[in-house]
């Protein structure tokens, strides 16, 4: 593998630094804190060369014109297998049946998001798919509207074909070939009656590679410069998975049938329709919780499972925890519903609480009673990052956690890659000591030159949240001393000193680094892969569109859907 250093990667901006995953073979050069001299990542050179711009289709040329890019290309992505959520939502949309997928093997991750793009299906998976398909099929054949009308009378082979074609279109997200219909109709004929045959057909469809995987070939005849436009059915499938985590609905299938999902404006119009659907809001919430790690990461516990030290935080009850989550969800929903700007996510002081959470925040309970809008103290709170959910998830069991909070901002909010902690060094946080300020306990990181290369970047960001304890309560004194929550962060290439998380959030709200990271995370969510250097031009076009929208948090999904990165695929080597 060829590697090149990206000096100063942590302070780099935009798309230069990638999350490390095996697929792209991007990984970190420095193995251990004890060896490191600087906190840098490494990255592969992009494979192959970009196609000449002259060979590009006209709609991509438009994107190039917008950005001034001369080397437009698209990164390759692996085939994806449906997640448990996508599987269950699809079954619900197609058959009106609630599928139990609780026993499915855990989904993989691509960056912060749940996607299955690497591992192979094992015997255990096959057994799970078989069991799920048998249970769903048994329910589906008695669910209203699943069997065709002809099945009630003298059911014959033609009726079976109608069943296979109609269900197949939805389950495979495209019309079936004649051969596929033949094969499934033959299976139907082995049943002990029409409904029994239908049960077998549904079983086979739900275990089919055409359902379980997103298989994309594109319209090879329209390929140009190694870039292949996806077919309208493939776009419909992508849109449904991206915006709803589900199967295409009637309207998408009709648009696909008319081959009207090829032009950016056509795709954009469908995306706009779809994001007004309640399913899109659910999917947006999944985006936020996965992006921000609020349902857990490999180093912190998610809000639903969060437990705190009962002695340190007797106030952290199940009801308070639920209210915290409710605040975050309601806050983000509200932001989306009113097409709020990304900056507001970092700076808004208008939020939502019930009496218990209001007491936690030191404010009056909402006038409405129950759970309602509140106004937070602008000297203490500023948007999402200072919410109790975020501070609790990124807090230890009995104290604040500057390292987790610093890494959270750098990796999740700013898309900066950090090397993993050194393997053989005990990554043990200092024991909380009521007589010593938390901040002072972490000075070891700065004092030890082996650790300082990374922690001199992480800790000064995390210290900015020292005014919030392990459950997100505001504090002015810690360890018997006034809280010191001053810090430093480099944004858009410029180092900034700040005093507390309110100032830090204000800096993030105005930074291009945070904006392009937000757009980048939506891109990853949209195409189920990490970016590669080849995607730089397309990502730039999305980022510009995001700026033109006034950083509308809701618009970015439409921009991703319209992007050539979403609508095309790169011909893999050897094809």
């Amino acid at each position, binding site marked *: 593998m060829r590697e090149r250093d990206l000096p100063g990667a942590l302070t780099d901006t935009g798309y230069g630094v990638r999350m490390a*995953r095996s697929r792209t073979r991007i990984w970190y050069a420095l193995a251990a804190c004890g060896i490191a001299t600087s906190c840098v990542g490494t990255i592969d050179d992009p494979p192959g060369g970009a196609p000449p711009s002259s060979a590009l289709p006209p709609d991509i040329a438009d994107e190039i014109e917008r950005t001034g890019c001369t080397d437009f290309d698209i990164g390759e992505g692996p*085939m994806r297998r449906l997640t448990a959520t996508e599987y269950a939502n699809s079954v619900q949309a197609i058959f009106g049946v609630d599928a139990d997928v609780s026993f499915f093997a855990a989904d993989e991750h691509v960056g912060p998001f749940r996607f299955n793009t690497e591992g192979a299906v094992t015997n255990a998976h096959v057994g799970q798919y078989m069991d799920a398909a048998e249970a769903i099929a048994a329910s589906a054949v008695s669910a209203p509207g699943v069997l065709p009308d002809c099945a009630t009378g003298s059911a014959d082979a033609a009726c079976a074909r109608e069943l296979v074609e109609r269900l197949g279109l939805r389950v495979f997200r495209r019309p079936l070939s004649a051969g596929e219909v033949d*094969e499934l109709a033959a*299976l139907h004929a082995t049943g002990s009656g029409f409904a029994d045959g239908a049960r077998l057909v549904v*079983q086979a469809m739900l275990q089919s*590679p*055409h359902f379980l995987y997103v298989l994309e070939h594109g319209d090879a005849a329209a390929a140009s410069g190694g870039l292949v436009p996806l077919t309208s059915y493939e776009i419909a499938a992508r849109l449904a998975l991206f915006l709803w985590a589900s199967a295409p609905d009637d309207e998408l299938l009709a648009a696909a049938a008319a081959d009207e999902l090829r032009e950016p404006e056509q795709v954009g119009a469908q995306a706009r329709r779809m994001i007004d659907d309640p399913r899109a809001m659910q999917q947006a919430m999944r985006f936020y919780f996965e992006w921000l790690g609020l349902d857990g990461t*490999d180093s912190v516990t998610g809000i639903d499972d969060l437990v705190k030290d009962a002695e340190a935080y007797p106030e952290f009850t199940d009801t308070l925890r639920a209210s915290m989550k409710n605040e975050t969800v309601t806050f983000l929903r509200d932001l989306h519903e009113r097409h709020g700007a990304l900056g507001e996510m970092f700076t808004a002081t208008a939020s939502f609480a019930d009496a218990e959470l209001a007491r936690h925040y030191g404010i009056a309970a909402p006038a409405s009673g129950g759970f309602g809008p509140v106004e937070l103290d602008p000297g203490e709170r500023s948007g999402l990052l200072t919410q109790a959910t975020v501070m609790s998830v990124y807090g230890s069991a009995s104290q604040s956690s500057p390292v987790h909070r610093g890494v959270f901002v750098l990796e999740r909010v700013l898309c900066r890659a950090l090397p*993993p902690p050194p393997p*053989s060094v005990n990554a043990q946080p200092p024991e909380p000591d009521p007589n010593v300020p938390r901040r002072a306990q972490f000075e070891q990181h700065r004092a030890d030159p082996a650790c300082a290369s990374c922690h001199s970047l992480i800790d000064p960001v995390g210290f900015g949240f020292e005014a919030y304890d392990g459950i997100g309560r505001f504090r002015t004194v810690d360890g018997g001393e006034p809280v010191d929550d001053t810090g430093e962060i480099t944004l858009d290439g410029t180092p900034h000193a700040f005093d507390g998380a309110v100032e830090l959030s204000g800096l993030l709200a105005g930074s291009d680094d945070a904006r392009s990271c937000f757009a980048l995370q939506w891109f990853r969510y949209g195409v189920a892969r990490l970016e590669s250097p080849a995607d730089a031009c397309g990502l730039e076009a999305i980022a510009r569109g995001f700026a033109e929208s006034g950083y509308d948090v809701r618009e970015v999904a439409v921009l991703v859907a319209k992007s050539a990165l979403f609508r095309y695929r790169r011909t893999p080597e050897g094809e």
Partner: protein
Amino acid sequence: MPASIRLDRRRFLRMAGAGAAAGAIAPFLPIFESGVSAGGEFPHRHVVFHTGNGTVHDAWRPSGSETSFTLSRILAPLEAFKDRLVICDGLNQRVFDTGPGRPHGRAAAQLLTGFPLTADSDGAAGGMSVDQFIAGELRDRGLARTPFRSMELGAFRVTHEFLFSGPNLPIPQEADPRRAFERFLAGAGGGDGATVDPRIAQRLAERGRVFDVVASQIRGVEGELRGSDRERMQRHLAAIESVQAELAATAMPRGACSVVSPDFGGIGDPRSSAMYPVVAPLHCSVARLALACDQTRVVSIILGTSGNTRLYPTWLGISDEHHDIGHRAGGDSGMREKQIRIEEYHAGLFRDFLTELDSVDEGGPGQSLLDHSIVVWINSLADGGHGMVNLPVVIAGSGGGVLRTGRFMSFGGASHCDLLTSLCHLMGLGDVAKFGDPSFGSGPLSGLA
């Protein structure tokens, strides 16, 4: 009583010794034919029992000499099995210091493969795990023709990968013991040992027709794919074919093996922390049943995976999280005590598992299922702070007399890869020179076998 099992020894041996007769029930494989000699010997089994987040070494290490030693506080629950154990000290996971990956992910993926990770991804193992290797060799060499090659169980939420069928090919563990029972044992038992229940036969045929269509579709798709996508599709097809064989084999009634389902009531969410003390012993019971009925000869039970598994041992009166406790046990006496108590608890679970295995009589005194097994209790970390020196390893059972037990051994910092090599040898695969990355191993542990 959660479970009971009745093994009719004479029938078992009759079947075991009657390979030719069993062959009459083709197309189903004669299940007891190969692993059991005409003399009526019972097969040897390989079991991994993993617990995570490290131990407290000075509360784990026994005192005394190889053959005259006193169990430590953590291992005290194993007193009744003391003369049937080999306690292995001085094994280091040297692989740990190389390659990419985050500490717990690499600790997990490297433990049983003996290879460094190839990328910063939990699934990017460098090779096959030892359980899968042994299972594959037993089958390929005709030493075992059990319905299932291997069995993978995992109490609690799995956040890291331990078991691999090859590089980058993680194998999930079944988290729900009820599902594991249905998959591995529901078809076993009952009947006259020769004919298949017609309802089961019908279901099998139906599944076969469905699988045929799915397999045909996969074959059609596979040719259009390239590279790793194509490989993934080929593996999917292979898995379908393998499951079909498993279903066919489990449909064959096992006249010699009568299985009563354990009591799965009250499991709730088997992945929840609170259910751990219910689910973990049930996994052990299902494993024991599967081994006793010779459904498989290789079992891995992955309990409490290392890392942020959000295991809160509230049933021990401990409200902190296990991973957090592990990290802090080195510097905080309160946390150290909690870590020791969790380890004692796991020692008790292991003892109960050994007791279950020992309750299956396979030929009189000194001939229990435990005696015919090699059961390894291992931890992917030496201590909760990512330490890799002195992994806690306890081997129980003698593998049919291959292993001399009742010993406490220290291997002076040998690579844990050598333990993996020894595990192969103990299962009769003596031609394995080095398991795992050869640059980290030097052969089987000296003096073990």
